[in-house]
């Protein structure tokens, strides 16, 4: 009996198995995306609701938080472009925070001053934040396995750049005291003398350039490599 189609060997001559198998594979893949999308969306809703209930409105504006919802949308739409964009940003801007979290948990020291960021926050909030940071980048890499490599069109890349600019402008105008997405001064306390409007412009330009570099020279080539070595 065929495990995927449910047909015995005697039926194989009359009914072509290829399309059925393909349909099941697609259905399973869709279901997988749906489940991951739901998990991410529910996680994001819970985190945001808890943050709002604590009077913490600004944390929703951090890249690491709203991209959980962004990634959920990417899953629901099965959009490779969106997963590429998240991975391209996350790999360079979120990974350092993950490493800092690890360092913070092991040694109690933090390059980005996590002890100050989470000063007075309840423990469950810290745990959710930790999960959010550690899960999303690896997950986006795993999601790449379900797609064939494809270069995103120029229009989408222009939208990505415009989105980064809008987010940074929004982050800047929310206020210096929140320093959302490090828009007012560098997030690491040892380097936070880097500040001012020139810093904001440079930081935004740096984010755009590094994201594009990451997209074209890290994520897409990496995706091609994992396809070539037949991991999927």
């Amino acid at each position, binding site marked *: 009996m065929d495990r995927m189609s449910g047909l015995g060997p005697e039926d194989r001559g009359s009914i072509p198995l290829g399309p059925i198998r393909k*349909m099941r594979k*697609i*259905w399973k893949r*869709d*279901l997988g*995306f*749906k489940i991951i*999308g*739901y998990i991410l*969306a529910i996680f*994001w*809703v819970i985190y*945001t609701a808890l943050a709002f209930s*604590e*009077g913490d*409105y*600004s944390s*929703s*504006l951090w890249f690491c938080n*709203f991209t959980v*919802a*962004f990634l*959920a*949308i990417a899953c*629901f*739409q*099965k959009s490779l472009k969106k997963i590429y964009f998240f991975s391209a940003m996350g790999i360079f801007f979120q990974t350092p925070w993950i490493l800092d979290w690890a360092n913070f948990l092991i040694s109690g020291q933090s390059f980005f*001053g996590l*002890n*100050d*960021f989470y*000063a*007075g*926050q*309840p423990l469950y909030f810290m745990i959710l934040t930790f999960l959010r940071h550690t899960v999303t980048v690896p997950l986006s890499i795993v999601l790449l396995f379900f797609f064939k490599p494809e270069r995103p069109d120029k229009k989408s890349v222009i939208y990505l750049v415009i989105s980064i600019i809008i987010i940074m402008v*929004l982050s800047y*105008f*929310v*206020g210096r*005291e*929140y320093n*959302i997405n490090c828009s007012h001064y560098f997030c690491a*306390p040892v380097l936070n003398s880097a500040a001012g409007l020139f810093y904001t412009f440079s930081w935004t330009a740096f984010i755009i350039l590094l994201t594009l570099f990451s997209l074209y020279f890290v994520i897409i080539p990496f995706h091609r490599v994992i396809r070539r070595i037949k991991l999927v």
Partner: protein
Amino acid sequence: MSLGVKRSLTKESLIVGILLVGVLVFSSFASFAYAGKFDLKQYVKNADYYTSQLSDETLLGIIYSGLAVLSTENRETLSSFSNENFLDVARGTEEGKTIASSLNPEETRASEELLSVILNGQIESQNNGNYFALWGKPKPAPVAPPKCPAKLGACTPGQLACMEFELPLDVGACEYTCGPAGTWVPTLRCPTQWCNANRCM
């Protein structure tokens, strides 16, 4: 089947998309509106984190330094607080939580103003280095104490006073707040030479 799944996926992405935009817009406005403000009830839940390393004396020093820069109206609203009350709230004890939840709107506003003044680093006291370090905020540049003569006599902590003086080389008036030790601490050099009751004219 495949089409059905696809349609529902689009609907879900639309819902999450609308929620995401709503949250981002709301968060931006709310963060902007609440910038620099602190919620007392939220503070007392986690107060221990901030104040556990500070002695009572240090804590009271910070609180009285904060009181000194509050508006007169808010300072008078909080004048009914004893040192124990301030410490309970600052440390987030059960008593402090009860106090925080039983304040009337004026007292809540005044307390939150005091909290904002302290946590935003608008005050300077000799002992608050730890406090600012805990909050990860740079310690503000030292502010020179107002040039005022010492006011003698015992007082009740939190009490306010204003004194006009005429020294050989200096004439003026100053506002004083009674510190935790029951002595007068100069808080403000009046812009004129005169007092009006317990305040500068």
